[in-house]
């Protein structure tokens, strides 16, 4: 268990906790594994598009190819997970009825709708040089590859960041209280995952940027996660308990191990592959852990009632006595 947020003045007495038969006050999101899987894959796609765009500009064809193909595969996987979660694929189109800035899901849908086509086109453009593809088509693809890839790279960061807002913009205690740092956790996790995927697929000679992105992302994720836990107060507890706790511990361990392996021996292919796999698994564990911690915080009325009681008590001591 983590200590309470540092340096909180002890003027307010600890809030008393009562509940209605221990029942939850807020409802947990009705989301199964589809949603964290979708978030992991979205982050992987976004980071891979960034690597591919950079590789294209700096003439690293193997890194470019692996980035574009990984992005398309991850995007396809995340779309499938999303449709599976909705359970009614035909009704996905209802998302397109409106653009709604107060709904991170609406904003995210439109970001994905903008990002998906260029990311897909960039991956398809990798077919340009493949034998058997007609030369004319190959020339068109070759011409479209770079603009599409760069557009996907520019649209990728919002894809990686918006899912944090998606979770935070709820009354689920452990998601809402994480809103300051969660975007940084998620984009770093995306960077680590994309770097890891490239380490698996790209020869060491071209994987320098992937190694740096992987290590930088992993370190940033560990830092942002530590800061997040400190700013969340008691709603950080579910991140350490039960299934969510196990996932978060695994995430930290895998991410740190992946970064260390990359630093120590990332140029040797077998070690690089091992490091890449650890980073991918760590990134997935982060998403599953954060989602599971939020659901657990919603199921226990303590995490809804006690912080609100404390807030009321603080407001009462602060306000001038009338």
């Amino acid at each position, binding site marked *: 268990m983590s200590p309470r947020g540092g340096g909180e003045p002890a003027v307010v007495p600890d809030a008393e906790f009562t509940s*209605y038969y221990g029942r939850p006050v807020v409802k947990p999101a009705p989301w199964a594994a589809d949603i964290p899987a979708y978030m992991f894959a979205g982050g992987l796609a976004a980071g891979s598009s960034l690597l591919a765009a950079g590789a294209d500009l700096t003439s690293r064809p193997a890194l470019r190819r692996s980035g574009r193909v990984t992005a398309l595969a991850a995007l396809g996987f995340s779309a499938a997970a999303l449709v599976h979660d909705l359970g009614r694929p035909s009704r996905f189109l209802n998302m397109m009825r409106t653009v709604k800035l107060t709904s991170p899901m609406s904003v995210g849908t439109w970001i994905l709708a903008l990002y998906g086509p260029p990311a897909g086109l960039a991956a398809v453009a990798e077919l340009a040089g493949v034998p058997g593809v007609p030369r004319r088509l190959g020339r068109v693809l070759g011409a479209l590859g770079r603009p599409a890839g760069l557009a996907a790279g520019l649209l990728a960061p919002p894809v990686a960041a918006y899912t944090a807002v998606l979770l935070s913009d709820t009354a689920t205690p452990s998601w809402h209280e994480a809103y300051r740092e969660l975007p940084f956790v998620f984009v770093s996790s995306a960077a680590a995952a994309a770097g890891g995927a490239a380490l698996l697929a790209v020869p060491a000679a071209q994987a320098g940027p992937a190694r740096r992105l992987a290590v930088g992302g992993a370190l940033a994720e560990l830092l942002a996660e530590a800061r997040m836990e400190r700013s969340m107060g008691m709603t950080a507890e579910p991140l350490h308990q039960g299934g969510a706790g196990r996932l978060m511990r695994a995430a930290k361990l895998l991410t740190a191990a992946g970064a260390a392996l990359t630093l120590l021996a990332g140029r040797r292919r077998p070690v690089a592959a091992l490091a890449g796999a650890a980073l991918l698994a760590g990134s997935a564990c982060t998403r599953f852990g954060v989602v599971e911690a939020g659901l657990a915080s919603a199921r226990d009325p303590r995490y809804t009632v006690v912080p609100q009681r404390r807030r009321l008590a603080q407001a009462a001591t602060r306000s001038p006595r009338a």
Partner: protein
Amino acid sequence: MAGRHSLFGPIDPAADAGWVDPPPRKGFFTDTSVCIGCKACEVACKEWNLLPDDGFELLGSSYDNTGALGSTTWRHVAFVEQGGRASVDLGMPGLGPPAPAPAAPAPGAGAVAGAPPGSEPPVSAAPAERPDFRWLMSSDVCKHCTHAACLDVCPTGSLFRTEFGTVVVQPDVCNGCGYCVPACPYGVIERRPGPAGDPLAGIAQKCTLCYDRLRSGAEPACAKACPTDSIQFGDVEELRERAAARLDVLRAAGQDEARLYGAEPDDGVGGTGAFFLLLDEPEVYGLPPDPVVTTKDLPHMFNRASAAAVALLAGAALSFLGRR
């Protein structure tokens, strides 16, 4: 249209949603001090709105076998049994004669015409005889918040603000994403789990404040069915005055713990369209003590996410500096 207070603070929700000359805002004032726990509201709501059953299980929580608000429960009566408290006479009507009553014939003295004046009836409710125990019963419902998180986060526009200032789901537009469920700070709205084949399975549902009845000038089914006027329907402005007056009466009677919940237009959700007179802390009834619409922090959230996105772009660019 959308103004300064569109995300937080006191507004007229119908006007903010773009309705021109909307009728007065409608809502519920639920006075739990006169709730008798009859569940007529639950039944009337189910009947009128054709809601399926919630399963037939005994929950072991007093007379509450419904549990909580959800997709098939749009009114929910909470039962709280509290010991260790002195109860206070709320001025409820009871059995027995009024205080300066003319003497009633004593039982068994039917043959005697005219008992001596001043003889007490056998049933009396002297304060000293009351048990050190009280019931709290409260009929809960969707709050129809001034700033409704469910409506804010709905990506399809399925949830909308009616001309009466209430919040309603359009089942044919809802795509079942379930985002409104964790967004509600009161845990009201829910995705209906099944059965498979039901056109409403997988669709988010909650109280509509009987939008269909309102449109034809009728009051909602629960308020209509409430035998004690614990559930009062009307214009929110007027209901707030009525609630304040009732609170004064209860306070004057020594009910110090009585309080209004959701009636303040500058609370975390801008005040609710359905508000309550409670006799204890909100969480005793399963209500959040200080709910805040999550959208209040949304601008800050998008700022943080934008900063993170820029950081990712910069980090990716930096990783291409240096040797191969």
